[in-house]
């Protein structure tokens, strides 16, 4: 079980998650400081390490739309938070799988900041409201990458198999 630390609406862009003016910063060790930078209070709480690993950001539809910047995933991965959204933009979803950021697609999800969610293999239970929601499974096409622990180890495995 984990707590919702931020609940957002539809069409949250990667500019919101990781503003363009910090794009020269690329190292996963350095990107977390700029997560949701313009949401000043939330950024401060992240940086103060107020939230335990597994804490949840809830999004509406089309979460992560816009730029392909991978920093939008590495910045969240740095805090080991999870994203539960009604739907995810394509590149953001792929980047999340590639980097191993925990994302859950849950078309009906309704949850407010402070709610407690329990995520199982195919459901999300909002323990605060008592409502149970179905998940949409991540694309089966990408299962190999998830099983390998991300695209870097997956690609390394493919290279070794070729050699």
């Amino acid at each position, binding site marked *: 079980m984990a707590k919702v630390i931020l609940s957002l609406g539809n069409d949250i862009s990667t500019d919101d998650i990781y503003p363009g003016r910090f794009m020269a910063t690329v190292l996963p060790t350095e990107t977390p400081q700029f997560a949701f930078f313009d949401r000043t209070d939330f950024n401060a709480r992240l940086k103060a390490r107020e939230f335990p690993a597994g804490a949840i950001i809830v999004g509406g539809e089309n979460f992560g739309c816009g730029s392909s910047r991978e920093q939008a995933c590495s910045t969240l991965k740095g805090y080991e938070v999870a994203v539960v959204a009604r739907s995810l933009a394509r590149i953001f979803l792929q980047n999340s799988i590639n980097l191993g950021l925990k994302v859950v697609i849950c078309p009906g999800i309704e949850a407010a900041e402070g709610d407690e969610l329990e995520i199982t293999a195919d459901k999300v239970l909002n323990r605060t409201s008592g409502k149970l929601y179905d998940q949409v499974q991540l694309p089966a*096409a990408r299962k190999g990458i998830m099983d390998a622990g991300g695209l870097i180890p997956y690609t390394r495995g493919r290279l070794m198999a070729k050699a």
Partner: protein
Amino acid sequence: MGMTVVEKILARAAGLPSVKVGDVVEPKVDLAMSHENAALVINQFQEVFEGTGQAPKVWDPSRIAIIFDHRVPAESPKTATNQKKIREFVAANGITKFHDIRGDRGGICHQILPEYGYVRPGFVVVGTDSHTTSHGALGAFSFGIGATEMASAWSLGIAVNIEVPATIKVVVKGTFPPFVGPKDLILHLIGRLTAQGANYQVLEFHGETIRKMSTSGRIAICNMSVEAGATSGIVPGDEETVRYLREEAGVTEAIPCVTADADAAYVQTVEIDVSALAPQIACPHMVDNVKPIEQVQGAKVQQIVIGSCTNGRLDDLADAAAILRGKKVAEGTRMLVFPASTRIFAQALDKGYVLDLMKAGAVVMNSGCGPCLGVHEGALGDGETALSTTNRNFKGRMGNPKSEVYLCSPSVAAASALTGVITDPRTQN
């Protein structure tokens, strides 16, 4: 069952007789494009090879393109150091499709690729930039990916585990009225589809209006297809594609085009008649918040931007120069112009557009992404509003979360520069 253009391209690139929506394929990559974020791709690429006993080696240096455009010339030591690292990698790996910060062959990646003939109909193009959808304008299947996915492509030469996307057919008919064009069409379409209406799908453009449209206009509509969530936009290659590649990109080899089968399956068909289309404006802070200009004219703007991978081409500068020639940008309004490439800049100099714009009061900047993504030049002050021909207006996009951005065509931007408020070019003297 017949195939769409993208299905045919993926079947060919994956070495399969046919594919259908939902199939998982691994197409060979014909072109892999990055800009300054190649700095991150290089890190990920080197990490792939760690522990393999193999030296990091790109699969085919002739198929990698790297173009500096996002922050040119560098705005910070950090960017300059990233660019230095990329230059060293380019030299060490024999990457020839490299465009450094230069006045003779520089520009925005989504202009350089078409301009130098790097993209051909039927290609599979991947780019570490969401607007890689642009190259669908030349009949290629071209889509944005993240840096780690690019590192994988550099290593293996394929795009791994790609699901064949469904396609929406967009049929456009009618002749644009004066001062209305491709930008208005794509903004209108995004407004209709919404920012997620084409998620995980391709927009395939058809109809007499598209057939008559220049490659420049086609790039603008494919460029912004991603703003409806599309994996890619695509205009099937035709006579105009061949003309562009021959005459403007100097391509001499055969240029086979890929067309859709008559019985190809589409998830949806959208029909648009542009004959009565008004200039369209995307209002803050979402690209799908699109309104006809009548509903927003009169709104005050402090900064006008003409440029970007969407609308920084020669015809865009011509439209702006025609409106501004012999007139003055309003006091209290600043106008920034960024030609999409140095070749376009030089052509605009030859044709007198640059002088027209400067005499009117516009600041003509060097080719590059400029203020579009808020990292370089042209930041907005608190409470300020920009009217821009770029492609995104998310909160904070132009570098300041306390500002607003409206998106429009070059004609609307130029007409509004004269008044300092959003102005309909159709009604201006």
